[in-house]
């Protein structure tokens, strides 16, 4: 299962498309492009020379064919908007697999020196894995810096490099929240937990009252959820400075707090620890084995498509908090559009990446056609988007809940330049300890040492926690 599940979109349309004609928003690509050459581009050395508007105009009028790798269903619709705006440019859309399988193919093509696309769908967490190999194009010379205020703050820091490079344009996001079964909560007199302490108490109470039901499932194969929970708790597991320096602290005090908490609940047997996105897990959600699903903003639509038997019984709420006075959340999933450095048409490719995600009609289409959770501020405050009240959630304004959560996502979380390795090592240490109900805190130490020795082996200068 790729970590990004945000594209498993199905289910009823939560919105009409009526309003998008009347909304223009502040998203004007023209503004972005004319701003290039201004003070926002060229932020630091090595960013390349800004490309002038004349060059951009010329490039966009030259017949060009671009290739775009994406797994987003019906992406043709958004691409058609771009082709209509720039008739000289033809974009070939290729589905090379979702998430990891696509990255594997991309890496192979990059290594082979041919066959790589011009633009690519890439998840936030995978960006450093490709910048470490110098595979992505810095979009600053093409005016991307002017788009900063368009996007939710934390997404911009996710696509920015240590020296201010802009590696990609945000497309959708996954601020984390909690979906819960109102009926099960009511039946056992459980209040929606506001803190993790209350959550733990509810887990014990519920499982005691009904041994067949668990308050939640923490999937032992889902490092993305763990990273999201670390993110919420304010952890900084990976900090890079300069190309070859990395601080790995996946077993620092914050991580240990999480390890003790979740490992403890797993050991007590009051939460489930089965792998997610499997047949058994879908069945469990449909049959009411779990009373909550800790998930992200793409979760509501996904769940309404995969747990049809439970329609009307679910509600959404923010994650329980470590400090109720300072609500915070993490992010799980969401992706961006990046340009591959080897492209022969950098200008057209860069303009495509920007247009796709900032053109008002295109950005809105992602929310209405693919049910992506938006990354642009204007959509997140758009009355029609946030007032959607699907019946699967009993008429609750679910988008509003997640839009509010989105503003509490910490903006300083960083990903390692070897995410796949971190994920595999997590599953075999921390994930395994959860599944086996053994010492999770100790497993964190093993994870730390495995990652550290991998990084050193790969030539990094590693500072431990």
């Amino acid at each position, binding site marked *: 299962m790729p970590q990004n599940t945000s594209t498993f979109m199905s289910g009823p349309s939560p919105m009409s498309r009526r309003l998008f004609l009347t909304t223009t928003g502040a998203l004007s690509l023209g503004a972005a492009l004319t701003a290039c050459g201004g003070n926002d581009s060229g932020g630091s050395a090595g960013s390349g020379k800004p490309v002038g508007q004349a060059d951009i105009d010329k490039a966009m009028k030259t017949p060009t064919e671009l290739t775009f790798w994406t797994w987003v269903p019906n992406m043709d619709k958004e691409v058609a908007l771009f082709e209509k705006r720039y008739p000289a440019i033809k974009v070939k859309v290729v589905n090379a697999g979702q998430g990891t399988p696509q990255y594997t193919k991309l*890496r192979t093509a990059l290594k082979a020196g041919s066959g790589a696309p011009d633009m690519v769908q890439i998840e936030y967490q995978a960006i450093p894995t490709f910048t470490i190999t110098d595979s992505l194009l810095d979009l600053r010379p093409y005016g991307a810096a002017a788009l900063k205020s368009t996007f939710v703050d934390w997404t911009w820091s996710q696509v920015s490099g240590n020296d201010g490079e802009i590696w990609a344009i945000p497309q959708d996001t996954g601020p984390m929240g909690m979906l819960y079964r109102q009926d099960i909560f009511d039946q056992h007199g459980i209040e929606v937990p506001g803190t993790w302490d209350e959550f733990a108490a509810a887990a014990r109470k519920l499982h005691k009252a009904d041994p067949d039901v668990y308050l939640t499932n923490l999937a032992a194969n889902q490092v993305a959820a763990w990273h999201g929970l670390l993110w919420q708790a304010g952890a900084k597991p990976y900090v890079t400075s300069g190309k070859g320096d990395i601080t790995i602290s996946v077993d620092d005090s914050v991580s240990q707090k999480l390890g003790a908490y979740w490992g403890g609940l797993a050991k007590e047997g009051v939460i489930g620890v089965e*792998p997610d996105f*499997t047949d058994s897990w879908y*069945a469990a959600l449909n049959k009411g084995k779990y009373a909550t699903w800790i998930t992200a903003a793409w979760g509501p639509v996904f769940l309404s498509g995969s747990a049809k038997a439970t329609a009307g019984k679910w509600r959404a709420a923010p994650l329980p908090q470590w400090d109720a006075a300072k609500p915070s959340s993490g992010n799980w999933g969401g992706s961006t559009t990046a340009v591959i450095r080897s492209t022969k048409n950098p200008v057209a490719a860069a303009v495509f990446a920007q247009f796709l995600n900032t053109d008002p009609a295109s950005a809105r289409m992602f929310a209405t056609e693919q049910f992506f959770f938006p990354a642009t501020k204007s959509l997140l405050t758009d009355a029609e988007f946030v007032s959607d009240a699907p019946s699967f959630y009993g008429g609750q304004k679910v988008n509003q809940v997640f839009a509010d959560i989105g503003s509490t996502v910490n903006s300083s979380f960083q990903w390692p*330049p*070897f995410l796949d390795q971190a*994920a595999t090592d997590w599953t075999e240490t921390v994930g395994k300890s959860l599944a086996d109900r053994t010492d999770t805190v100790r497993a964190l130490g093993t994870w730390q040492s495995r990652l550290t020795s*991998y990084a050193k082996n790969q030539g990094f200068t590693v500072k431990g926690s």
Partner: protein
Amino acid sequence: MRRQRAAGPLFVAPFMVLFLLLFLAPLGYAAYLSLFQERLIGGTAFVGLDNYAQALSDPQFLHGIGRVALFFVFQVPVMLLLALVFALALDSGLLRLARVIRLGIFVPYAVPSVVAALMWGYLYGPDFGPFAQLSRELSLPVPDFLSEGWMLGSLANIVTWEFVGYNMIILYAALRTVPEELYEAAAVDGAGAWRTAWSIKLPALRPALMLTLLFSVIGSFQLFNEPKLLMNIAPDVISSSYTANLYAYTLAFTGQQVNYAATVSFLLGLVIVIASYAVLLTANRRRTS
């Protein structure tokens, strides 16, 4: 005469070209790759046989090899014995609906192993799998097919299910080539069905059995699809280095250690050559002694 001599190499040429391109060249390239180390920071360096030294003392690699060896020792005899029994039964002509049965046994081989692993993954499920539900219905303890202790057996079951029919067809085809005269002679000598099977059919099957055994050596040591897929539902039991082949895959595509992956693959190939040779040698010795 001269023309005939020229024809020989010509006939062999297509094979040699393909053999060179698709077998020797990749092998040579893998061997070449295995002598280097490419790192994310610092680029590529020639390291000679360092990767081999590392692999030979790498517990993940060695455990993977050990696990598939264990798998081979238990799974292959069961599978081949079943295939043999089915082949003999079909050949005996005593079965009704022989064609249907033959097809029925062979059909699992036609199911892609990806689909097979998914299907069995569902059947093994501890919550909603049919075995679990039946056990619960009968108030019996629920067998945990996906636990550490059962996993190798569960994998062996899938592989057996998939390949019994395939091996049976090979053995059955071999049986069909036994000359009718031998059976007639045996009947004249007063041999019954069991005696015929033991003294005529089994010796006739020896080359075919050898072939299926060799295929099984290669198949077992390269075990990949089934554990890779069950990994999704049992990530705590099947690690990324569960089998040697899986380990090579993980190294290349997760760790980006292409060079070390080439080393591990090369060594795995070597192990398979040695195992195949050992199997041939013991079988031949038994025949001559």
